[in-house]
């Protein structure tokens, strides 16, 4: 579903005498439906930049990101027009950022409702599912009509995840989704990600958390010195089920 070929990103800071900051170099891998690729590596090695290049928040310096759309057409995300990216973000590609930038003066419930209505879900059904997801991620009913700017970091992150998952994207990019969560919230979130995997979503995630990696990942790649190093790690499905049964 996603094929990354020779992708590189460098930042040229024109306002700092054209200083060049190296992001990552010549990265290639593929992600298949229903599988999760975990990217690991030390802070600052370019993991988040890689995800942002796939989502096109960053413009790749070179290389290609081929994505097979639901209608079977293939779009090179690295070079696609902004209107194509907007359409894909609306319908097929989700992104869980490390930090949730809240929409001001919109309640948690309304955020989840409008995310769905923007994709054509009927308002009543959207509200029903929004309530279901808020419950799933453990956000108390007393907070549903509150503005998320007043939420704690963990609550914001859970809302962020619910907002990305509620649309059941075909491709989901996860940037340390469990980093700021307590143990029980982490379990909810991991269960939701596993459910989505079973439904066929392809995922690429940046993780530091070994438990999350062992529970969720099918393949693991490590980033070292701006390059990606394939590891021999491949979690087998039976091991996953055991991990799940053992409560992670």
């Amino acid at each position: 579903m996603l094929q990354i070929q020779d992708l590189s990103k460098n930042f040229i800071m024109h306002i700092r005498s054209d200083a060049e900051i190296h992001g990552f170099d010549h990265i290639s891998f593929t992600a298949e439906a229903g599988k999760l690729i975990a990217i690991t590596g030390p802070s600052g090695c370019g993991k988040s930049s890689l995800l942002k290049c796939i989502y096109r928040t960053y413009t790749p310096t070179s290389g290609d990101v081929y994505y097979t759309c639901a209608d079977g057409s293939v779009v090179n995300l690295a070079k696609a027009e902004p209107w194509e990216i907007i359409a894909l973000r609306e319908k097929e590609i989700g992104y869980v950022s490390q930090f949730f930038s809240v929409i001001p003066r919109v309640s948690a419930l309304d955020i989840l409702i409008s995310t769905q209505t923007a994709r054509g879900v009927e308002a009543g059904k959207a509200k029903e599912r929004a309530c279901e997801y808020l419950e799933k991620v453990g956000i108390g009913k007393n907070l549903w009509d509150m503005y998320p700017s007043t939420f704690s970091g963990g609550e914001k992150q859970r809302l962020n995840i619910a907002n990305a998952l509620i649309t059941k994207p075909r491709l989901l990019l996860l940037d340390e989704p469990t980093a700021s969560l307590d143990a029980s919230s982490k379990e909810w979130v991991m269960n939701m990600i596993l459910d989505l995997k079973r439904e066929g979503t392809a995922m690429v995630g940046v993780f530091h958390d070994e438990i999350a990696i062992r529970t969720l990942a099918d393949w693991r790649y490590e980033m070292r010195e701006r390059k990606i190093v394939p590891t021999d790690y491949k979690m087998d499905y039976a091991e996953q089920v055991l991990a799940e049964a053992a409560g992670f």
Partner: protein
Amino acid sequence: MERKKPVMWGRHITVRFGEGCDYCRTHTNLEKGRCPKCHTIWAVRDVDFQVYPGEILGIVGESGSGKSTLLKTLYFDQQATSGEAYLSLYHEGKENFLNVSSQQKRYLRNHMMGMVYQNPMLGLRMKLSSGANIAEKLIAAGGRDAGRMIDRSIELLHHVEIPTERLRDQPRVFSGGMQQRVQISKAIANTPPILLLDEVTTGLDLSVQAKVLDLIRSIQKELGIAMLIVSHDLAVIRMMSDRTMVMLGGRVVEEGLTDQILEDPLHEYTQTLVSSLL
């Protein structure tokens, strides 16, 4: 993937004050768009853009970069020196509307576009009631039934959260935020496919700014109107727009997804602009 057709698009739009000379015709990178030889001002130079259905396109840039002039050109407040602009609903997007007759321009202003100015004095008649201001737009679009026009004015004022008992009050007695809201209701009175907004929150205090922006966002969601928003405030652009164009010296120096423009600006000027964010 099926490509959407833009609601409005422009090609090579140029607005020049002065005749120009050989130097400035061949040098596009003039400081502040001003020719050092003949002093011609190139307010807007060779600008291309597209606005897609239901989309908000933001235009940012410093004062004098040409962003408001571009908007005023599209709304016929300013004559274009050259270039073309099209509306998908006007002659199926086949006629350049910048060169049409005055009668056609009036038609386009009243049926196809709404404009909200930074200064409400430009968009409202301060000595007419707020209801009459809205009715003026309805009459211009062919409205004749007084009862229906009053009902529509009440509906629109209610939509922008102005108490309907203020229908007969003149906007000159309203606060700045209320005046902007009356302007917005006037601009959307005939449900145009595109709304042009020129620095609509500049000069308003923060809480009033927030209300105006929330209102614009809710209108965009409910009515699906495409919008072109000019602002020098990156926070406004971040909150409102899907795509952003960055203008400098009359030219578009960078355009892209709003999150890309703000997080990975490629042009030197955009980097300066983003690094100036408080």
